[in-house]
């Protein structure tokens, strides 16, 4: 198992090279002279010159990239063009917030998807299945900001049940964290919930048709444990892959939700950086988000191996 993980980690290295190069070459996309564009509104000649030096724009792109990567692997992602704070510091201080939001959203998605998927699969084309299918079709089409807006209207404006905006760290006060994260997590996780329901339903329907489920039924195993114990373990692996992909999606989607609910996470950092064209921060946020999503998918693969004895090496 450990060898497999090590192998997978090693395989990530070339991929991260490609990704980091893509991220770094964003600077090439800056219209006009990057130094002029990035120096801010109506920059003076000094500001432009200073920006040029700080970003090392006089060197060739490969030299620039090499310098950026060698600094990055040492944990140095450069400095913000505006606050002069190290990018790694601000990214790392916001990462836990985004992670907790993402995993709360995944948690919500699973909380909905597992019962819904199982109930729907119990009777394919039955009434529950049809309702679930309609629900998940609508669910995948729901924009998170609309769900968020509806939730805000219902829970904070109409009934004043939950705090509308803001964030409290999980380690500071778990209960407060939950009350602040609940609405954003639902808004962010609704698409994931619909998608996962669909996948789980499909996987369960397939598994329930298999010979080994018939064997378990023929051996008198109770229907409930046939579904929850025998079938679910087999159906879980394809679903897990989808959950891994969802993590990647949600890391991006969190930008909107963080913005709406005023949560100081990576996404809102990215948007602030984009609005002010703070290139080093944009690059830093993205590379960290990619690493997180890649690691999450690695975790998924490990879990996949545990569910699937055949995959285990």
């Amino acid at each position, binding site marked *: 198992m450990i060898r497999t993980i090590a192998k997978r980690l090693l395989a990530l290295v070339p991929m991260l090279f490609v990704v980091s190069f893509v991220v770094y070459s964003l600077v090439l996309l800056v219209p006009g002279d990057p130094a002029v564009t990035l120096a801010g509104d109506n920059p003076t000649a000094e500001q432009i010159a200073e920006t040029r030096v700080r970003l090392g724009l006089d060197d060739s792109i490969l030299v620039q990239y090499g310098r950026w990567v060698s600094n990055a692997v040492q944990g140095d992602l450069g400095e913000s063009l505006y606050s002069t704070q190290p990018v790694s510091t601000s990214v790392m201080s916001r990462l836990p917030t985004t992670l907790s939001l993402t995993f709360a959203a995944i948690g919500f998605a699973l909380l909905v998807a597992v019962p819904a998927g199982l109930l729907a699969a119990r009777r394919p084309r039955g009434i529950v299945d049809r309702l679930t299918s309609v629900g998940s079709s609508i669910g995948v089409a729901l924009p998170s900001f609309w769900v968020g807006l509806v939730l805000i209207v219902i829970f904070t404006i109409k009934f004043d049940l939950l705090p509308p905006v803001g964030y409290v760290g999980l380690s500071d006060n778990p209960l407060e964290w939950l009350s602040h994260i609940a609405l954003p997590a639902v808004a962010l996780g609704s698409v994931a919930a619909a998608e996962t329901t669909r996948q789980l339903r499909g996987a369960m329907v397939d598994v329930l048709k298999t010979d*080994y489920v018939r064997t378990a039924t023929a051996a008198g195993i109770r229907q409930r444990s046939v579904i929850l114990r025998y079938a679910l373990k087999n159906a879980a692996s394809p679903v897990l892959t989808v959950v891994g992909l969802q993590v990647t999606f949600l890391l991006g989607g969190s930008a909107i939700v963080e913005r709406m609910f005023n949560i100081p996470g990576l996404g809102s950092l990215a948007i602030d950086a984009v609005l002010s064209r703070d290139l080093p921060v944009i690059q830093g946020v993205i590379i960290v988000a990619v690493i997180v999503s890649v690691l999450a998918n690695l975790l998924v693969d490990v879990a996949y191996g545990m569910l*699937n004895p055949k995959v285990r090496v």
Partner: protein
Amino acid sequence: MSESESSQASGAPARTVLEVDGLSVDFGSGKSWVRVVDDVSFTVGAGEIVGLVGESGSGKTVTCLSITQLLPPRTSKISGGAIRLGGVDLTQLGRRALEDVRGRDIGMIFQEPMTSLNPAFRVGDQIAQVVRRHRGVTKQAAWNRAVEMLDAVGIPSPAGRARSYPHELSGGMRQRVMIAMALSCEPQLLIADEPTTALDVTVQAQVLDVLRNMGREFNTAILFVTHDLGVVAELCDRVVVMYAGQIVEQSGVDPIFEAPQHPYTGALLRAMPQIGARRGRLPVIPGTAPRPGLMPTGCRFYARCEEAEQRCTEGPITLSVTADGRMARCIHVDGVEQQDQSVEVLVQ
């Protein structure tokens, strides 16, 4: 529809375990249903091995699955008859009661050993689960029982093998595991649906040995479904031949090989390859069986029968009982009585 109250003929070898009585099964949905099993009756006694023979589509598997009610609930229904296990009509049981009967009183083995075991669990655990389910013993006791059963079906180093996953075992080994699981709670009845069809010939012989020995040891009634008459000759005490959803012949195993009563059985026997026979083409049965829903009113084998004549098509053919207690659904068989109207089912 037979209403017969079966009373086992006196001098019968053993107590009746399973009695299928006038079973009819329909497939379809909504308002349109098609009969795929039509008025099937037979019994299996303790310690007895009954072969259920027929080509694919004859309804033998459907008959088997309806005994434990494993047919798809919304696209199939038992439309008539009773299935009695030790006197209890299984068709009248609710789901939870059925779940108690399955595995405890009836063990089942299926054709596909490669896919019949759950790939995500160790084989020992799969057997132990069944034991725990029906006997309520501790995990350790259930595991020990699983190892014991694996040993009994002839799996070498069973304690180690119990820890294997199905994909680590060969087809023959997996089928032994299936037998071990099916017999782990010492059921009164074992239903084996073509358990050796997917196996190599040598492995097939070993698995049949295991089945025979285990059946003898536990005095289990075995219903053995197959299309292979060679296996029937080797293993079974009695044979039920099905064709197009009906029983066409029922008899002890020796008489059927000596003198088949129904032309279909005869054709099946001639189609069997024989060792030492002169070389040449095997006779095949021309044509195909009629499809469910398109059954002729007369004899269902008419179109393929060498002895067919006009009166075969004139009306339903009844299952006649001959003087020596055999049954055949053919107009050319001189029956002493007709089973469909009889009160008594004479066997052997």
